[in-house]
Structures are given as structure tokens and as C-alpha cells.
């Protein structure tokens, strides 16, 4: 008889191989660490380096959707926005009724080439107007009345959909990389995942010091607590990954000219890591400042230009490096803004908004339906596409990962992939 105890795999990779042998794994599931069982339930293939990659671009603060995709034939739009509305003649024409903000010309070119698209009017039921709560809902993919401790990317990784063998402390490629000072809530996972944050200066430690620090970090025989263990695991990972990453970034030669701003430089660094062949599946980049409560016209125009030009440089670089078929980029924001402008020539917190998807696999430029603007004063837009449909599309069609494992239930996927 098969000896279940001895044969139990100890790594995700082993466990997945087991799964393909058709052994009745679930019979032993009470002996197995739960993350391994989860892996099998998800039954995704073992990792390869040329698999699909997702780049998440957070527009922090709440992007004004109605001044991003402009319904310029709708008189309601100009009624709601007498001073900050984008004039028809200024908008970049998309269809007979819709235009893009004039700052988005670079993205518009990508749309014309069939490399970018827009999902319109994305939101969720019973919207929350708090930055933090609504951001949390987006990043954890929860219902409005539900609190989830992990992020949707975190759960994707927990389900071994990330594929990479980056167990904490092994120095393998990180499964997810964020270019921001704080770990995005989307990355919060139930089981330790080797994520990497791209910030921080050079390292002047000599080898001897590093070796000593490594020794101290590996020491775990004294009075431990959860935060101490967490710090040790993170530091071990960081020590190993850091040197590799800095080498990659220092030696990178981009094939396009990235604007000098921090956002574009972050995307350049993401391109460098992708081009280096790391098996990382998810990257997270953030662009802040979208909370435009007053005098928003100039600020918003600048933000959208930064977004558009940064994304275009990134895509051009990927195309030149023949990596574009592997990378999907997607924007998101915690909410859109109130349809009617406020007295400060700005907009207050709102609900649904369009988001961008970019990549050579993106199909046709417009998805979903635009919001109705027949609204009473100070009312919000009614969403028509649930943001989890967008996630489901990415999980299902891009990552081939069972969506209900990550999202809790099945959502109807969209047609942008």
C-alpha cells in the first residue's frame, strides 16, 4: 500500500507533479499543508519562464472617469460639468458619441493599433465613498459589505497560479513585484509569498557583514513572535533578491524613450525585470494624485498625460523587445468621481469609471456600456460592469487560473481578451 505520510510532497512544485500522476490527493488532504491542497485544487501547470505577465497600474485617489472618456454628444454631460467639461472639439474622437481626454493621445494611438482598450463604467454594487474602504474592496475583490483579509493577487498566488517556486528564503524569483514603498493590499496573501518591493538605495555592505547578517537572520531559536518571523523571512528574501535586481536595472537598455517622471521610470524598471527573464507574474505600479476635489482641470490633464505617455513608452519598449505578447497591463482606481462638478471646479468621490487594458492581445478598443447621465443633482453613476468581471477575464483568459478559487464565485468574463 502507498505510504501516504512518506510520500507527501513538501513543495508546491512536487505537489503539482503529484496531481498530474492522478493520485487521489484529496484523500490525504488532512495531512497536507493547506496551501499544497489549495494548489492541487487549482491544478495549474508548473512554471515556465515565458508565461503571461500582468502589470497593474493603480491610479490612486479616484480617477475622474467622465473626463477620461468623454460623452461629448450628451448635453447632460455639459449640464453636469459647466466649467470642467472637456469640449467636443478638444476631445480625441473615439466613436460618434465618445472621445478621449486630449492628454491621452499616446494611448489613443495604441488603441488605433489594436493594442489598448477601455472597459467602460466599471464598479460594484452598493458603492462606498471612502478612499480606503473602496480601495480595499477593489484590491481584495470583496463585496461592499464584506471584509477579506487577502488581496486578489495574493489569493491568485496562494492558489499556486503564480507558478513560480519562490518560497520565502530560497532566493528564487519573486512571484510579484511592486514599485512602491508599501506592499499593495492586492498582494496580501494568506501564505507567505516572496514578493519584492523596488525601492531603496545602493548597498555598501561588504560581503563579510552580509554573511554575518545572514547568520543572525537565520537564527530563530530565541523567543519568537509573528512579527519577528515575518521580518526574518522578508529580510532573507530581500538580501538574496536585491543584488540580482539591482544588477538587472543597472544594465538595462530600453528600446524606447521613457519620460523622466517617476511613474515612467517605474515602468522602465518593470520592463527591465521582464526582459531579464524573471519568472515574476505580477507587477504593481502606482500613480497618485487623482483625488481632484478642486481646480482639477490642469492637474487631471497632467496626470493623464503622465499615464498615457508612460504606458506608451512601456508598450513600445516591450514591442521592440518582442515581449509584448507576454504582457497585459491594466489600470484601476478606487472609484470614479461625482458626475456633477462641485463649486471648487473639482469633483467629489464617485462610483463607477472606465479602466484601460493594454497589450498586443487586447481585442477591440471599447468594452461594456457607457453610464447614463440622466441624474439628479449630486447623484452617482450606476455601474454596468462589475470590476470582478474584469479580474475574472484576466484570471481566466490570461492566467488560465480557476476564477472561483480567487474570487469566491464565477463571474461572466468580458471580451477584451
Amino acid at each position, binding site marked *: 500500500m502507498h505510504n501516504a505520510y512518506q510520500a507527501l510532497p513538501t513543495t508546491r512544485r512536487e505537489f503539482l507533479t503529484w496531481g498530474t500522476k492522478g493520485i487521489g490527493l484529496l484523500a490525504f488532504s488532512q495531512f497536507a499543508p493547506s496551501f499544497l491542497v489549495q494548489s492541487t485544487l487549482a491544478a495549474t501547470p508548473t512554471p515556465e519562464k515565458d508565461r503571461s505577465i500582468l502589470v497593474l497600474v493603480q491610479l*490612486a485617489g479616484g480617477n475622474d472617469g467622465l473626463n477620461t472618456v468623454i460623452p461629448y454628444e450628451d448635453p447632460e454631460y455639459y449640464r453636469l460639468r459647466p466649467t470642467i467639461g472637456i469640449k467636443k472639439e478638444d476631445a480625441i474622437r473615439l466613436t460618434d458619441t465618445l472621445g478621449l481626454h486630449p492628454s491621452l493621445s499616446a494611448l489613443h494611438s495604441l488603441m488605433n493599433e489594436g493594442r489598448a482598450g477601455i472597459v467602460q463604467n466599471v464598479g460594484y454594487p452598493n458603492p462606498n465613498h471612502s478612499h480606503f474602504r473602496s480601495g480595499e474592496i477593489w484590491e481584495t475583490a470583496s463585496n461592499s459589505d464584506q471584509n477579506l483579509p487577502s488581496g486578489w493577487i495574493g489569493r491568485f498566488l496562494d492558489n499556486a497560479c503564480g507558478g513560480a517556486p519562490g518560497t520565502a528564503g530560497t532566493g528564487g524569483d519573486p512571484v510579484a513585484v511592486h514599485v512602491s514603498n*508599501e506592499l499593495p493590499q492586492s498582494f496580501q496573501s494568506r501564505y507567505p509569498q516572496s514578493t519584492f*518591493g523596488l*525601492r531603496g*538605495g545602493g548597498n555598501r555592505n561588504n560581503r563579510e557583514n552580509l554573511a554575518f547578517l545572514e547568520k*543572525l537572520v537565520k537564527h530563530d531559536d*530565541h523567543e519568537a*513572535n509573528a512579527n519577528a518571523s515575518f*521580518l526574518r523571512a522578508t529580510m532573507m528574501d530581500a538580501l538574496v533578491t536585491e543584488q540580482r535586481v539591482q544588477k538587472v536595472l543597472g544594465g538595462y537598455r530600453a528600446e524606447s524613450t521613457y519620460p523622466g517622471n517617476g511613474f515612467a521610470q517605474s515602468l522602465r524598471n518593470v520592463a527591465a525585470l521582464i526582459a531579464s527573464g524573471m519568472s515574476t507574474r505580477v507587477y504593481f505600479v502606482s500613480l497618485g494624485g487623482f483625488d481632484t476635489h478642486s481646480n482639477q482641470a490642469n492637474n487631471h490633464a497632467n496626470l493623464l498625460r503622465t499615464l498615457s505617455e508612460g504606458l506608451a513608452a512601456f508598450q513600445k519598449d516591450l514591442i521592440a523587445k518582442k515581449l509584448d505578447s507576454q504582457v497585459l497591463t491594466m489600470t484601476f482606481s478606487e472609484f470614479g468621481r461625482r458626475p456633477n462638478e462641485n463649486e471648487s471646479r473639482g469633483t467629489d468621490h464617485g462610483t463607477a469609471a472606465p479602466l484601460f487594458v493594454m497589450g498586443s492581445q487586447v481585442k477591440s478598443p471599447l468594452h461594456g456600456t457607457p453610464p447614463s447621465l440622466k441624474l439628479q443633482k449630486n447623484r452617482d453613476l450606476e455601474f454596468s460592469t462589475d470590476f470582478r468581471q474584469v479580474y475574472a477575464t484576466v484570471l481566466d483568459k490570461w492566467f488560465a487560473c480557476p476564477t472561483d478559487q480567487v474570487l469566491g464565485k464565477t463571474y461572466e468574463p468580458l471580451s477584451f481578451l
Partner: protein
Amino acid sequence: MKLDLSPQAAWQPLPANQWNEDAARHLLRRVSWAAQPPEVARLMNEGLKAGLERLFPAKANLLPEPRLVSNLAEAGPAYYQKIRNAESREQRQVLQREQRERQRQALQDLSIKWLQFASRPENAVTEKWTHFLSDIYVVSHEKINNPAEIHAHHDTLRQGALGAAPALTKAVSRSPAMVRYLDLQNSNKNAPNENFARELFELFVLGEGNYTEADIKEAARAFTGYRVRADGFHFASSQHDTRPKTVFGQTGKFTGDDVIDLAYSQPAAAAFVPKELGKFYLSDSPLSPAYLAPLADWWRSAGYDLRQLAHRVFSSRLFFHPAFRGNYIKRPTQLYLGLVQDLNINVAPYPRHSLNTLRLMGEEPFRPPNVSGWDGGRLWINSGTLNARRQLVQTLFTPVNEENLNADEQVEIVAARAQGAGVFTVTDERIEGMLKNMTPEQITDRFVDYFLPVKVSKTYRAEILAFLSSETDEAKRVARLRSTAITLLQSPEYQLC
């Protein structure tokens, strides 16, 4: 470690027989930046109750307005006039760029003066407490580009930091930085802006879920007419909505202050600041409602007095329980100011040491990431910020090449030295002194006991001793001792308090 205290017992004073040096170190690491031996000794002398009376006094010291901040504020109106009168677009842009640069420098001056002020033992505890309050009553230089208003806002917090919370909230609602930050500036009776009212309920007094959207819309009307003019806060009564409002089920011609009082009459108000206090000082995981309830009931009956709240929490059995010892991740400002105190050095008056690393570690002074302040806890820690934390320690042991500093920075260095606060790095002389007077065993014990908040094993200690004493070349012993200290301060354990 399990919290084996009943919610009732949790907030009782620590029994006298549990008050010892370990407890004093714990108190100082949590309410101050570090546990310096003279401070520990002083606490042991006076006892916990008297110690807290001193650490949390009736009034916090105020931070004088830094020179560049005053200069900018004084020059401001004339300068804006100049920008308005510019002859061409190009000229205007040049002037605007200049103005932005002056604002940047003034904020830098403010940031460094704050760090210097906060690093002094006599201010450390109240400045951490003010920092805690500023993480509730958030404003950010991201939006408020006049550093004088940022400074004044924090002085408003210092002035009310140890009084009644409702009075502080009312003062904050009139703080020019806050009026601008949460868009009261343009809010009028015809078009009330909801931003302030929302954050008042969500982030200052009650927390999410304890108010309705209708409460916010109505409350926003009560705060109409709040304005900032050149001489500070001004109430524009013609812009104020005097009609009745219905907030939390009560109807009346409420003013902004009335709405704040109404908010504090809600049940959720009594637990809100205690819960935030728990997150800032005790643990990443929020205190459970069962533990918060008795504290909240008491705090309401104490008139929401912030000083009494500090005295009560920081003398409680819960605060000193093993479940809350040595397991809280230091925020970047605490890591930096704690290093300054632990290493007995001074805050350097130029940004390279302090502000640049603080930004990389994720906590740039006066620039919280958003309206709710910093999330903190484990979110401080990732490979990038850990690298920055390590870099900081390295920097504090590396002599400064003063020739590379600009003229302003050199002036600041001279000024700092004149005040006897001119030691910015750990010098070789100090390390040599240590080697002369102490055995490797003594040095190891000193480092471990002084720097680390957790009890380490014998083998950990032995590892350090081995590294320290394995260098036999006399000429390299100083470098080896320096490496040992650096590495220990970079260790995961030193990130905790």
C-alpha cells in the same frame, strides 16, 4: 503570547511588584523613541505614576517656527503679486518654479527642525504623541504647499494634544491647513463640499460604518463658510448655511462645533481614539471590542481627556503584558530617532541622512500617503524598505565629508555645533574608547541588552561574540566592532520595539 487578562482587569494599573527595569524599557521604547539608560534610571527613581505625569505633562512644548518657513510666509503675498504681474508666460513660469523651490526648502527646514526637536529626550514622548494625533488629523504637504500652515497645524495638535478630544477636533476644524486640505475653503451654503464632514466622521471621531451618507451631506452644510485668509482662519457668515440640519437624527440650526459635539455624543466616539491608540502604540491587530469597551466607557466619563487616556493606557496591566512586548514593528521615524538616541548622536541638519532615508523607508515627514495617514505595521516592511533601513544604519556610522555640503548646510552645521548638538555619526574615537574599556563579552552584552527588545538565546549571543572576537589583527579591531554594531542594528530584532 496569549493575552490572559479579563477585559476588566486589562486596564487596571500594573501591580507594583511587576514594575522593573524591563518594564521601564518597554514603556520608553513604546512611548518614546528608545530606552536610553539615563531615562530608564530616572523612571525607576520616580516610579511609573510620577513618571507618566512627567512624560505626558499638562502641556506639550511647542516647536518654534523655523526660519525659512517664516521667511517664506512673510515674502509670500508680495511674491504672489509678482507672479500675477508677470509680463509673459515664461516669466511667470520661472517665478512659479522659484516659489516651488522655496517651498520645498522651507518644508525641508521644517522637517529637519522637527526631527531635531523630537529627538530631545524632553520632547520625545509628547512629539510621538503629537505624531500619533497627526496620523489621525492628517494634512499633507502634497496638497498644502505653504509650510507655515503645516507647522501651525502641528502646533495646534501640540496645544490640544493633552486636553479634551472634542476641543482638539474643533481647533483642527479651524486649522488653515485642514480647511484647505479637506476643501472647506470653497464650501458654501449653495454648494457644501462633503470632504471634511466625511473625514470628520470616518477618520477623526467615529470610524466607518457609524454614520450615514445623509449625515455627511447634512453635516457638510454646518461647516460652510470656513475660510483661510492671509491672517489665518476666518468665518464667512454670509457663506454659512444657517438653515436647520438633521444629523444623527437630531435637527437644529447646527454650527460646525455643534456637529462635532453631536459626533462625540455617538456611542462609537468613545472607542475610536482608544482603538487608534492601540494600533499606533500596541499592536498591528486591533484591540477587540471586548477589551475596548471598558476603556471606552471610562474615557467617555473622563470627558474624552487625552492626557488621562495616555496615563491610563500606559500604566495598565494590558500595556505591560508579554503579549505586547518586543513585537511591534518600528515606524521609520521611530527607527531613525531611536537610532539617534541609542547611538547618542544628533540629527544631522542636512537631508541626506534623515529625510532621504525616511522617504525610502516609507515615512516622509508631513507627507502621509493619503487622508487616513500611514497604514503601518507589516506594511512598513518589504525588501525595498528593509534595504533602506539597513542603509540608514550604515550612514550613521560613516563620517560626513563636509566639503561636499552646500553653503546653507554648512551654516546649519555650525549652528548645530554651537548648540552642542553637532555629532552626526558614530566616530572611531568612540569605538576605540569602548574597546579600551570593555571586554568583548561586556560589549556583546551591552549591545544585545541595550539595542534589542527581545530576549535572545545563548547561541545568538555566542554568534555575536565570535564575530566580534574573531578579528585578531589589532589594526582591524575598530572596523570589526563597527561592523558588529551595524549588523546588530540592521537585524530583524532591532526593527521591533
